[in-house]
Structure formats: C-alpha cells, structure tokens
C-alpha cells in the first residue's frame, strides 16, 4: 500500500487510453449494423429522380430490387448503350423476371409472401419503353406492389 500511495504523490497518472478501442468498436458496430452492403455490383448507371410523395420500404427482406439504366462505360461494348435491366448482379432479359421473382419468393416465409414488393431503381434518363415492359412482366407474374425508388426533394 505504501508503494502505491508514494507513486501517486509524485505525479498524475497518464490518462488511460485502454477504453478508446472499445469506443471505436462501438462506433464500428453501429455503422456495420445501420449500413447495408451492396450485395451486387451495379453494372448500370442509375441515378433515381427526385420526388416528394415518398414511402419508406419497411422490411428489406420482403423487397427485391430491379435496376434499369444505361450500361456503365466499361460494359458498353458488351451490353450496348440502350437502357438495360439488371436483376441481382447480372444484366438480364425481360423473360428472366418471373424466375428472379420466384427465386426471391421461396426465400420468404409463406405467410409474408403477399407483402413482397419490388423496388424499381430506374435512372432518370431511361426511357419509358423498357420500364413499361418490366411493369407488364411484373403484372403477368402477379407482382403488383412496386416502389419507384426516388430521392427526397425539398418542398418549396
């Protein structure tokens, strides 16, 4: 005991930084939880337009994502310059949509299958032709809940 008090009397002990890593780890875990890793590499240029009437997508596991836009510069030689559809991580054709939807559907518990929705992330510069075709295909597959992804625009 005498040793301890003696040391204290000499100078202030340095501030312990041992808890600093813990604090950083808490921050790290926070970011890991709130962010979602992009599960697929986007091969298209997609910049969604702005809108005001937005609804939040509630349950991520009940949502499948479809991207429509023009291929990125490095893929232009393979996929051309016209707007294309991407399902998962590959550029797809319209006829792949039913299989894609079914693949997602079987992963969802049976009692929640009616609330599956499709999120369409469409580039603002894309033309309606392909969007319309995708919509028709979705209607044929009886996937009627869709969400046009958009960014929030400040209301004047």
């Amino acid at each position, binding site marked *: 005991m005498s040793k301890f008090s003696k040391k204290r009397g000499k100078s202030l002990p340095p501030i312990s930084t041992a808890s600093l890593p813990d604090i950083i780890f808490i921050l790290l875990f926070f970011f890991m939880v709130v962010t979602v890793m992009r599960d697929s590499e986007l091969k298209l240029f997609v910049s969604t337009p702005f809108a005001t009437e937005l609804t939040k997508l509630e349950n991520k596991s009940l949502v499948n994502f479809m991207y429509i836009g023009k291929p990125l510069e490095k893929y232009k030689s393979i996929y051309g310059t016209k707007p294309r559809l991407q399902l998962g991580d590959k550029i797809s054709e319209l006829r792949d949509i039913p299989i894609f939807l079914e693949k997602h559907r079987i992963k969802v518990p049976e009692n929640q299958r009616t609330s599956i929705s499709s999120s369409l992330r469409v580039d603002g510069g*894309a033309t309606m032709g392909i969007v319309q075709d995708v919509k028709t295909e979705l*209607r044929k597959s009886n996937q*009627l809940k869709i969400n046009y992804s958009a960014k929030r625009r400040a209301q004047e």
Partner: protein
Amino acid sequence: MGKTKSRERFANEINAGSMADIAFLLLFFFLVTTQILEDKGILVKLPPWSNEEPDITRLKTRNVFSVLVNASNQLLVRGEQMEVEDLRIKAKEFISNPQKREDLAETPANAIISLKNDRGTNYKTYLGVYNELQAAYSELRNETAQKRFGKEYDRLSNDQKTKIRNEIPMVISEAEPTAFGEEGN
C-alpha cells in the same frame, strides 16, 4: 540500471494504444465501402394482368382527367398543353370541383385520372407527373381530414382513414404507351 527495472515492470502489459488505430482503420473501411441505401420511393399498386384493354369510353368525359406525355416530355392535359408545375393544382381542382363546374368531376369518387405516355418518354418526366398526381390526391385527403377530424391524414385512426379513402379513392389508370418516340439513346 534503474531504467531496466522499470522496463521489466511494464513488460507484462500489452500496449493497447495502437488498438484504437486498428479499430479506426476498420471503421473507415466500412464508412467507405458501405452506402446507406436510399430506400424510399413512390408506392404504386399495379392492376392485375388481363388481356383486355380497360374500356374508358363508357365513362363520362367530365369524369376523366387525361394526361398525355409525349416523347419530347411535353404534357397534354385534357387537350391543353401544360407544365408539370401546374399539374397538381389543376388535378386538385378537377377532383374536388369546389365550384361544382359542369366540366369537372361529379364527385371525387367518380374522378378518374388517365395517364398515357410514350415509349420514348423520359422516366424522370413520367415519375414527376406521377408524383404530382399522387401529391394532388394526398393533399386533398389531408385537407378533408383537417376539415372533418381536425388532424392530418397520417395521424388518423384506421377507420377514419378508410372513410376518407372511400370518399377520395385514388384512381390513376395507365394506358398502354404509344410508340412514336425514339427509344433509348
């Protein structure tokens, strides 16, 4: 010799100072590689698929608010050219018809908005138009909710919401697009 003694005393303690740096590196790695997903959008319920075209000719003309968007992103609303900015006000006037005019909808429940676009229309324009139409409906519902219950539509109970929804149902019918415009370039 006293120096070595003090060194020996600290030898069994791992220096945790660099641990923070390692954690910071991990943190920055996650900050850079992840994106906060923009998970908002305009919710739309598509009509079930049927091979027959819906017949709107039997509807009264006064109840139909037709919006046409052509391949050069111009709007034709009930035969008149219009800007997207004016669409919301016009649509609201059409649906609610406050002055009971002969050429606007009989009641909000009878009003039908018919939206038709071209295959060459820009998605941005299309979504802008759709957004305005939906905004017109939600503003009307909000106003009715304020008048009736003194609360915003979103804060009403489910029963009250259904009541207003029945009074002002949102009917936006989309016709098959025309194909005059150039697609994708």
